[in-house]
Each structure stands twice: as C-alpha cells, then as structure tokens.
C-alpha cells in the first residue's frame, strides 16, 4: 500500500502515513493535537484544517459552509489522504496547551509539579485467573470479494468473516464507521483490521483500518489518585507491560484533598479546569509511555481508569458537589463506556474509555480495583486491605462479606507536603538505618541512584529508625542532641538524612518536625480507620488472618517499621503482605480481561460502605493514635520493651 507524506503547519511536523488515513489520525501520529470532541464522527466540527497542498477525499457532512469549503477548509476526521499533503491546523482547532498550563510555575514551588517519571510497578500485569479477553482486540480479516453469487452487504461481509475466523457474534458498528466502509474495503483490497471493543456485553467495531495492523494494539490503564497519577502501557497482544509511569496530579494546585477540589469545582470554570488538569496529566503520561516504546497514539485503542469517586467524576466532567454534602452521594458509581476523546484523553480518536466501578462517595473504583487484584474477595479467612494514599481506604472481609471505609490521611506518604518527599521513583530513599550510638545514617535508594528525596516507605523506615536510635520522642519531636545531623530552624528541629555532598540534588535531604507531624497524622488516620472498622464488625485485629498493604508509596515496606510507628496493627509480621499499587494492578487486569472488569462490578455491589465521618469513636481513636506507636501501648504488645 502507498505511503504519503503529510506536513502539519504551523508546527511543521511531517509524518508518513498510508493512503486513506484521515488527517486527524495522521495528526495524532505526528503528535499534533487537533480538537476532536466527537472522536472522529464528523459531527462536532472542531477539527477544521486548511488543505494547502495535496489531495484528500472528504466525506460530506453538512458542517462546513460553502465559504469555508472555498477557502480549502476540511474536517480532519472526514478527510482521507490521497497523496502528499500540507495542512494548516486552524487556531480554533488547536488544543491549546498553554491555556491549560495554568499555575505551573506556582506548582513547581510547592513541589507538586514534576516531570512524568518512571516508577517501579510492583505487580506485573496479568489477567490472573480470568479469561484472556482484552477490552480492545484487533482482528485481521481478508474478506472474499463480493460477486454475483455472494452479494451480501459490505457490513454483513465483515460480520460473516468475524464469525468465521474468530467466532464472534453479537456485533455493533457505529454509523460513522459504516459511512466510510464501502470505499475503505475496496481501496484496501478487502484486507482490513477491525478493532473490537467490549461495550454493554456486545462487541463493537470501533475502528476499521486498511491492511493488517493487528500486530500493534495497545491499551493504557490508570490509577487516578488525589495526589499521584500512575499509568501503565500494555501490549494487548502479548499481555506485556511496556512501561509504568507516574506524575503528580496537577489538580493539586486547586487543593491537596478531594474536599477542596469538590468545592473548587463549583467555581466558574472550576470543573473545566479540574478536568483539564487531570487530562493533561494523563495525556503526558500516555505521550511519554508511547514515545518511549515507539507506539503510535493511533495504536492505543483503549484506556481504563481506576481512581477514587471524586477523581472519576472530575475525569468525566461530572459535577462532584453532592459527594461532599450530607448524606454524601455520588452521581454515579457505575459509569458507561465512553469515547476516550469525549473525556479529552488522547489516544486513537475512536478508542474507548472504561472506568472501574466504585462503591460510594469515599470508597471508589481504586478500592474495588484493589480488592480485585489483591484477591481479597475470594479469601476464606478474614482479610484487611489497607490502601495507603491521600485517602486511606480500608476493606475488611473475605469471600463472605466485605465492608469498607475511607479516611482522609493527606498526601504525606505519597511524598507531597513534606520537605524532601518524592514518589517511589529512581533515587528515592526507601530504606534507612540509623546507628543508635553514633546516629550515623545508612540508606538504600530505588535503583541505587544517588538520593534525590524520600518516598513513603522511606519515611516509614526513617521515623521508625529515629525512634529506635533515640533521635525522636514518641510525640514526634526531634531530641535536642548535640549532633551535626540535628539542626534547629525557625520551625523547630530537623534531622539531616543525607548531606548535600552525597545527594543528587546538591541540597541536604532532611526531615523536619512539621514533616513528622504530617506523617503522624496520616498514619493515625489510617490506623484509626482500620481499628474502628474492625471494631464496628464486632471483631479484633487478632481475628484478621491477612493484612494486605497497598499503595504507591514504595516498592516495598518494612513491616517492622510500619508497626513500630503505629501505621499497622501489631499482628504477627507474617500476616502482612505488600502488593504495591493494587488499584493500578486491578485496572491492568481488567484491561486484559473483560471478565475481570465484570467481576469488579460484582465486587462493587458486594462491598458495604461504612461512613466514618459520622462515627464519633473515630475522632477519639484518631486522637489516641497521634503518638508513636500509639497512646495506648497495650495495643502494641510487641513494642512494649521499647
């Protein structure tokens, strides 16, 4: 098949594409962003371009005026390239990243904005026990040409071939794909690749491409956290994870917790800005992942997102106001499959966006996704899943029942709002040892790089070691010891973990009393939530046979340290298991298996939500937990001798 060169102005980017590729599709491959609200259906009229040179074949839509046509304006999504072209993207059609690039400089100051970076996925993607049936499949078809003996329609011909070669029935095709089908089949010599996506229990032909592109089919899954966005690029054919990246959620410039963001959503343009912020972050991650692994954005055919309820609302631009108001109701917990482009997520314009189901306002899709990937829902024994994030989420249960709660812990364990915090990426300190006598510090960083900062698991270890080495009091105050690592500042004392000569940044890496206070509150909120939930069910921690710890705060966690600081209950350490970002793992599992996603629906329906904010005992328990490990030492018998 012929290839043509197409150049986009004013970016002056050129890309080589196959004949009949649409201008929109070519633009995506070239990394030129063109607005496309309808995802290429030819109905929104947002993707206007001027054809300067070359030949395209345009479908008539009735959207362009005679005058526009005479100026050479075409709809990018409806114009199939027939030769080398030069195209100018109209200003109105350009996705204006500058407009969305709000307050970035301000964010930098707060340490919130940083580049997308590679993180270590803890769990590798697999569909687990579920049947392999990824959310988007590509199937190459060679159709018999019609003749007088075989006169069924083009569409039926495609269906018939799908039944014959892949045994797939129950198909739907959107009108937009049918409109161009006749031409496409004949131009491609009846050799096409169809992309099938699952939607409402039927397969939908979301994309028909000329030739065989079936080798190249990718999906992206996300965990949209209040503080951190994590994304993973998965090859849907080989089921391999190509890369995992994370970035801070840029919504943080509108408030670090969900409540302030919900309030902000009511501002004029608030919802739009919040939505743009999360989309921009996701698009950056997708861009970085695809660029690094030489994947064309057109080859990314589906996206699936897990995340807390507010984050999912904001992603889909649903007003989250009522989540905050008593009796705390989400607009929707089960969300329909939509076009990724509708939500502003840049993949193949016809690609679909799936959202994992949530349970309630404060127990969202991240929790159901975590329950799925951790397998809690099929355990015989009583399990406790503790997801350590800005919202700490707790699920208690087994195959028989599940009950969940959420507590606002703040972003400290994700490395935000603490002086030298960072996420669990290369160069993050994740293990610390302090010698009790000399107070000398040794540490280990992720990927053994020179240290850049401290991630959540590093903080857990650090505080535990500071307590054990006698540097820190149980109420979180640094002792006034005459030691070069202990310094007094205007805001209290700080402890130098790494002196600047050793650090990657050229700055001292320190932990301050304010940091310790934030971390103390975070651990208290999580411990108190778990404790109240267990009590609410008439149980004790001792009844819990397995504790699953999830969260993107590290690549591992030293259980002894987590108990030492009172984040986790004092149970035999072999009952603990760390699973990393369980929400992302559940999303990638669902990406590879429609069955897993359906299982997640079941899980969401099965989980009972227990509201902590109306539970008086929670505050009481929280206050008592604001101590290392806890005000009630009897709850930590193994630490008694300390």
């Amino acid at each position: 098949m012929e290839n043509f060169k197409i150049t986009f102005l004013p970016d002056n980017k050129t890309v080589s594409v196959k004949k009949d590729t649409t201008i929109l599709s070519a633009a995506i491959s070239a990394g030129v962003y063109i607005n496309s609200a309808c995802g290429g259906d030819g109905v929104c009229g947002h993707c206007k371009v001027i054809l300067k040179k070359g030949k395209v074949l345009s479908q008539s839509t009735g959207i362009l005026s005679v005058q526009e046509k005479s100026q050479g304006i075409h709809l990018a999504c409806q114009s199939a390239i027939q030769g080398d072209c030069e195209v100018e993207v109209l200003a109105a059609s350009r996705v204006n990243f500058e407009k969305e690039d709000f307050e970035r400089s301000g964010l930098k100051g707060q340490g919130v904005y940083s580049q997308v970076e590679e993180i270590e996925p803890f769990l590798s993607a697999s569909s687990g026990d579920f049947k392999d049936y990824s959310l988007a499949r590509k199937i190459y078809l060679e159709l018999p040409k019609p003749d007088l003996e075989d006169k069924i329609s083009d569409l039926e011909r495609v269906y018939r071939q799908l039944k014959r070669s892949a045994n797939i029935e129950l198909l739907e095709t959107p009108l937009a794909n049918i409109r161009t089908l006749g031409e496409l089949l004949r131009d491609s010599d009846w050799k096409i690749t169809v992309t099938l996506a699952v939607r409402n229990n039927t397969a939908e032909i979301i994309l028909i491409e000329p030739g065989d592109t079936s080798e190249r089919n990718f999906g992206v899954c996300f965990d949209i956290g209040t503080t951190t966005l994590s994304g993973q690029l998965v090859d849907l054919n080989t089921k391999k994870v190509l890369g995992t990246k994370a970035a801070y959620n840029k919504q943080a410039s509108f408030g670090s917790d969900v409540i302030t963001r919900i309030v902000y959503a009511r501002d004029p343009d608030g919802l739009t800005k919040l939505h743009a912020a999360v989309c921009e972050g996701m698009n950056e991650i997708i861009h970085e992942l695809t660029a690094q692994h030489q994947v064309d954005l057109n080859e990314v055919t589906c996206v699936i997102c897990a995340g807390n309820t507010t984050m999912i609302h904001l992603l889909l631009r649903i007003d989250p106001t009522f989540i905050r108001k008593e009796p705390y109701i989400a607009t929707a917990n089960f969300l329909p499959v939509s076009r990724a482009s509708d939500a502003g997520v840049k993949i193949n314009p016809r690609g679909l966006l799936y959202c994992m189901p949530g349970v309630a306002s404060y127990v969202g899709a991240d929790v159901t996704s975590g329950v799925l990937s951790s397998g809690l829902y099929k355990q015989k024994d009583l399990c406790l899943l503790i997801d350590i994030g800005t919202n700490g989420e707790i699920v208690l249960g087994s195959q028989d029942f599940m009950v969940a709660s959420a507590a606002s812990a703040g972003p400290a364990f994700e490395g935000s709002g603490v002086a030298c915090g960072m996420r669990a990426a290369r160069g993050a300190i994740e293990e610390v040892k302090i010698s009790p006598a000399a107070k000398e510090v040794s540490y280990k960083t992720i990927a053994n790089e020179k240290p850049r900062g401290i991630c959540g698991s590093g903080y857990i270890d650090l505080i535990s070691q500071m307590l054990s080495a006698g540097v820190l009091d149980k109420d979180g105050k640094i002792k006034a010891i005459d030691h070069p690592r202990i310094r007094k500042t205007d805001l209290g004392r700080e402890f130098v973990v790494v002196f600047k000569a050793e650090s990657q940044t050229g700055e001292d890496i320190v932990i301050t009393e304010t940091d310790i206070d934030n971390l103390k509150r975070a651990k208290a909120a999580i411990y108190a939530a778990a404790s109240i939930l267990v009590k609410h069910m008439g149980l004790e921690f001792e009844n819990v046979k397995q504790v699953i710890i999830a969260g993107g705060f590290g690549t591992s966690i030293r259980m002894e340290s987590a108990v030492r600081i009172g984040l986790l209950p004092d149970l035999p350490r072999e009952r603990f298991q760390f699973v990393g970002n369980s929400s992302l793992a559940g999303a990638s599992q669902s990406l590879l298996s429609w069955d897993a996603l359906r299982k997640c629906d079941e899980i969401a329906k099965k989980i009972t939500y227990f509201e902590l904010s109306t539970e008086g005992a929670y505050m009481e328990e929280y206050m008592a937990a604001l101590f290392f490990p806890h005000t009630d030492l009897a709850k930590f018998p193994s630490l008694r001798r300390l």
Partner: protein
Amino acid sequence: MATEVMVEKWSGEVSVVSIGATKAEGGTRSSVIKVGGQKALPYLFEEGQLPYRPVIAYEVWDISPQDWPQELISAYGAVLKDPLAWAQECVNKYKAELLCLRLQGAHPESGNKSPQQAAEFVSQLLKKVSVPLIITGCGDDAKDNAVLPACCEAAKGERILVGSAVQDNYKTLAAAALADGHNIIAESPIDINIAKQLNILISDMGLALERIVINPTIGALGYGLEYAYSIMERARLAALAGDKTVASPFICFVGQEAWRAKEAKTLAKEMPNWGPEKERGIAWEAITSSALIQAGADILVMRHPLAIEKVQKYIGQLMEG
C-alpha cells in the same frame, strides 16, 4: 426483695506517690504524704482498697498575692504581706499537712525574681515549715525552665512535688526532678490522650511512672467542671483496667479556678440577689473540690481556710465509708 450489689473487680491500681522525705529518708520533713494506691473507683470500698485519703494543700505564694478577691485576703489578713509568715500560719494555725508554693514572684510581670532568689526563698521556707512541699512555677515557660531547676536543687532530698510539665515543655523539669529526687506534676489540657502521652514521654526520660502526678486541668463549678470530671473518670477507669501509663494520682488546682468564677468574687452590692460574697466564694471552692473528690482527685490545692475545713469534714465522712 434484697438488692444484690454488683461488685466490680479491677486488675489495675493507681500508683502510690510519696511526697516529702523524713530525716531517715534523707530529707528534713516531719511527715510523708502518700497519695494514690486506689484499687477501686472512688469510695466504692466494697470493690477494693482505697488506702490513702485525699489531701488538701494550702496554696501559698512567694510574694503577696495581687489579684486575690477581698474575701480571700481578709481570711488571712496582714500575714499575706509576709509570704514566709503566711506559710507558717497555714501550718501552725490551720494545721496544713501539705503546702503548695507558687513561685509567682518569678514571673516577668510580677517581680521577675531571679532563679537564685526563688531558690533562696525555697530554702528559707523549708527551714520555717516541716510539712512536705509542692512547688509550682509562675507559668512563663522560659522563666520556669530557669527557676524550677534551681528550686529543685535547693530542695534536694526533700522529695517535693514540682510542676508543671506540659507536652511542649517537660524535659528541663523532668531532668531536674530526676536529678534531685523529686516527683513531677504532668499537666494536660483536659485531654486523656495527652495526659497519657506526657506520662509516657516523662517516663521515657527515666523518671518512673510512680513519681508522676497528673494535673488533668479542671474548671470550677459552672466552668467546665463536668468535662474535667469525665476525663478524670475515664483516666481512672483505664488505670483500674490495667493501663499503667495513666495510673497516676490527680492533683486539682481548685483554689485558683474557683476564685476566678464571677459567682465567687462578685460583691453582694453588685448582685444583691446572689447573697453575701462571704459565703459564696467559700461554697464555690468547697463544692468544686467535693465534686472532684468524687471523680478521684488525690490532691486538692485550695485557698480559703473555711472552704478547706468544710472539705476536710466531707473527706472524713467519705472515708468512713
């Protein structure tokens, strides 16, 4: 039908704190006051031993008090002008068994006495009276951190009770108490968690839990008394259930709180239908004390001799069972 009395059995007990040291113990006091040791809720003698009765400490200052209401001043008369004589009068005339010296004169706004001057006063007081002593600072953290260690040293060996240590400022005082063999008052703002935390922090420094007395912070009748009552009750329940970290005796500064209430000090001519101020203030102090005794108070720091007399009588009745 006969009523069956439910008897609760407790596993824990309140620590016994000894205040004052006799010659045999290396001090110069004529007696030792012991508080605590309860193995049951207040005055439920059927449930367990209550070995020591609550004690009342007369509040005295190192300077003549400036802001005391008229009724209090006239109760003591001219002796208030001479702090040492005032302290002696409490012991000799009113038979005080325990004194609580407040070093108000060290406060930057009330004379700003130096640590040496304060320590000198303590030395003199120890010579003039032989009862055990409680010493509290002026309330200014920085100044107290200088004054109280000096006074602790001056009273070395006398096993005084010194205070108050608070969560943000306990180390200097705890170190001084540890060095000179004294007991310490741990003050928390009507908060059982902070009370426990402070006890743990102080004991982490090496001062045994048996040398700590909790000041739970109280309010007078009408000023949060119930709140203090419930915190004390909760702490005592936890102590009896076996929580050593909160099993300390309580000290309640009733005098300063009761005499701050407008009901205690407003003159009858301003509020004719409230009755004579002479009775009102005394009643306010006595009632606040007796309520706190029922909550489990071990040491009451009081001001008016008549109020003290009433409360002593009440304690006597309670202890008869």
